């Protein structure tokens, strides 16, 4: 399909930009045809809502479009790599003292804010402190740091103090540690950033960014990026299919199924991005008995759940909450359905005649309600009579999540230690499974105080394996994150979670 009017307008607008000399060093040929000129703007239809669009990089970033806008405007200290490793960004090194509580963070000396000021260690520490003040909004991302005791050493070095020995400081600085100029107070508009792009106006719905030609990092191939917040997944997909976007994030599996063989688009799959774990509170009947929790995990037909809920776009789960984390244990046998063993466990738990429970879910994310219905049917076979009750999407997270004893939850591609902080320590704000095992918590502290990376990973892996067998989660499947991109689009971010938000290297095809 072609929409010549629109193309002509864009071409005219860009031609004007060329004439006024906005792009003296464009990567494309100097004799740009209108088509090449239009191809200078990369258009991303991202999940998010124009209504909730955040302007504060340290608060709540409700949609992916918010993360993407911040990641274009501001530099972060470190970046999650596609394989789970930590990549340097503004921070070039992070070195601990022998006790693993005092870390020297060195930052680049060649980064500058858009107002010309150099980015210093004081700016970085100021930004971390601001994140600490906004802990309620960013789920305590800096909770492991004693920011009052941390201090600036010189222009490019600061000392970051942790509350306990904490070996994963590089990881803790990943993704959302956006650095702003020290002393910034008014965040109702973007403050000067040092990132790969600069905000260049736009509307409530579409924010425009222009390449920051003095950025220290690899030169972004696109001169302009347009980030559009589109709440409806179907609309995002259609935007790409009709040529109104070059990348559509998080599109429905049904749409991907229809267009899998479409030659003008590419389907981008990111494995392990989303899971809807089944939550069982370990302090509420009947799930306070570990045998019942085991029975539930053995009663689930994971393949059927994957095929129906995620249309097969994903992989079956092995009850690990973060199987893509580099510390996830490997070599565990795949858990599969064993109704005989599950029924035996139910009898051992004194529930030979079954038990009535309420399983809560919602329609906040596609398929969560379907999953609940299927789970209820599958559990019926071992005598757990689960009545499904759906909560509206806008109250689910305040009335069900973290409160009810049995529900379908949501987890989106976050690292193991983030899940631990939010949900698995005795004082986590959302300890939804009431997992307060002191031995486990002690083993966690020990793992985080282990300086040797391989040994630490093994210890963290053991913690995950124990949680898999004894904890309150059943992870039946992981769904792929599905994006659609135009043919020839390259430089798309890999990985899940925060890494998906960094699109500065995207490039349009020919």
């Amino acid at each position, binding site marked *: 399909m072609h929409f010549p009017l*629109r193309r002509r307008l864009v071409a005219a607008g860009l031609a004007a930009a060329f004439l006024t000399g906005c792009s003296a060093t464009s990567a494309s040929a100097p004799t740009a045809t209108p088509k090449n000129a239009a191809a200078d703007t990369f258009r991303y239809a991202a999940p998010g809502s124009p*209504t909730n669009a955040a302007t504060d990089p340290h608060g709540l970033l409700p949609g992916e479009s918010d993360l993407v806008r911040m990641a274009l405007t501001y530099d972060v200290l470190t970046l999650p790599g596609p394989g789970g490793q930590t990549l340097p960004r503004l921070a070039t090194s992070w070195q601990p003292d022998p006790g693993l509580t005092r870390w020297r963070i060195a930052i680049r000396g060649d980064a500058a804010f858009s107002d010309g000021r150099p980015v210093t260690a004081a700016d970085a520490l100021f930004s971390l402190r601001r994140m600490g003040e906004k802990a*309620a909004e960013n789920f305590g991302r800096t909770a492991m740091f004693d920011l009052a005791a941390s201090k600036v050493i010189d222009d490019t070095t600061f000392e970051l103090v942790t509350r306990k020995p904490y070996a994963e400081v590089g990881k803790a600085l990943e993704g959302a540690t956006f650095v702003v100029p020290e002393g910034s107070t008014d965040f109702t508009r973007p403050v000067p950033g040092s990132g790969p792009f600069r905000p260049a106006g736009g509307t409530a719905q579409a924010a425009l960014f222009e390449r920051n030609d003095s950025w220290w990092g690899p030169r972004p191939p696109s001169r302009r990026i347009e980030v559009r917040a*589109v709440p*409806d997944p179907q*609309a995002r997909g259609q935007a790409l299919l009709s040529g*109104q976007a070059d990348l559509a994030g998080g599109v429905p599996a049904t749409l991907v199924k229809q267009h899998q063989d479409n030659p003008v688009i590419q389907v981008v799959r990111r494995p392990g991005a989303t899971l809807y774990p089944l939550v069982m509170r370990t302090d509420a009947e009947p799930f306070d008995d570990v045998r019942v929790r085991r029975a539930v995990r053995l009663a689930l037909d994971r393949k059927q759940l994957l095929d129906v809920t995620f249309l097969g776009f994903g992989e079956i789960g092995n009850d690990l909450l973060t199987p893509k984390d580099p510390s996830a244990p490997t070599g565990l046998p795949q858990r599969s359905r064993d109704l005989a063993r599950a029924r035996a466990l139910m009898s051992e738990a004194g529930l030979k005649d079954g038990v009535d429970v309420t399983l809560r879910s919602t329609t906040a994310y596609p398929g969560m309600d379907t999953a609940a219905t299927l789970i209820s049917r599958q559990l019926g076979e071992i005598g757990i009579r689960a009545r499904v009750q759906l909560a509206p999407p806008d*109250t689910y997270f305040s*009335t069900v999540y973290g409160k009810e004893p049995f529900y379908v939850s949501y987890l989106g591609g976050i690292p193991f230690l983030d899940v631990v902080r939010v949900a698995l320590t005795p004082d986590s704000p959302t300890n939804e499974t009431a997992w307060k095992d002191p031995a486990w918590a002690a083993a966690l502290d020990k793992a985080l105080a282990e300086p040797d990376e391989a040994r630490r990973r093994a210890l963290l892996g053991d913690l995950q394996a124990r949680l898999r067998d004894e904890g309150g989660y059943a992870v039946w499947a992981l769904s792929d994150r599905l994006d659609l991109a135009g043919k020839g689009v390259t430089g798309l971010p890999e990985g899940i979670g925060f890494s998906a938000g960094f699109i500065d290297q995207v490039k349009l095809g020919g």
Partner: protein
Amino acid sequence: MRLRRAATLLAAMVARGLTLLAAASVMIFLAAEALPGDAAEVRFGGRATPEQVAQIREAGGLDRPPHARYLDWLAGTLAGRPGHSYVTGRPVADLISERAPVTLLLAGAALALACPAMPALAWLAVRGPRRLRPVITVLVVGGAALPQVVVAAGLVALLSAAWGLVPPVSLLPAGAAPWQHPHLLVLPVLTLALPSAAYGAALLRGVFADVAALPFVRDAELRGLSSLAVLLRYVLPMSAAPLARLLAVISGGLVAGTAVAETLFGLAGLGELLVTAVGVRDIPVVQAVALLATAVVVCGLLAADGIARVTTGARA
């Protein structure tokens, strides 16, 4: 003397309008208040500790009693400062002025289509070719009952998927005004206009049938006046008052009812703002948008009353 009477009438009408608006604002506030959870709870649902939620509630003034918040809001709005969003902290006036052009354009274009379509369809149902009348009646009544989502899906299937005339979504390029891309507005405007036109025609059909049965209209028809002339010369003027009231209600409905069309086609307008604001309990935004839509209806109804007074007053 006549001037003074007109002034008194006008003052009474304005007073009535303001009373209606005040009542509506209280109702909107109470309705929003009755929703479970507040902005702090919904926003950080589950992921923040109770102390953190309390802290946010206090910082946003959410811990104060409802009447204090309502009066604050009222005072601010009367002073032209409708406050700040609980969620983003941005001025509500900014949020609304950013989005008003899209919604006003959609609603305006839909109204421009629905306005002539309503009486035309209604008249066809009453005095159209005899065989067509029941068909049109069914179409009009059925169309009025169709949800917007269904209309939108049908239009996308036909105009976009089958014929490839317009794109199935309407993302406006950054920095572009909506009217610069008219082809992007076709589907959302039709989605709004068709059910409104059908709804209006369904209501007008009865009015027209009554007017058409009046002796002097029958007389005009017997004299051999064309159907169109009868409509223009007799039926429309006679139905001016209900027609004006209908238009008022439909305009308000269009301003408030763009939510579905905006969400489906990916346009950021007032309807989408209202729906999201309700979802996150952003009461200042909900209040402002809902009150704006109410104001459109109230103004329209007052104008309709004025028209009714003029048309009936002339005869009295």
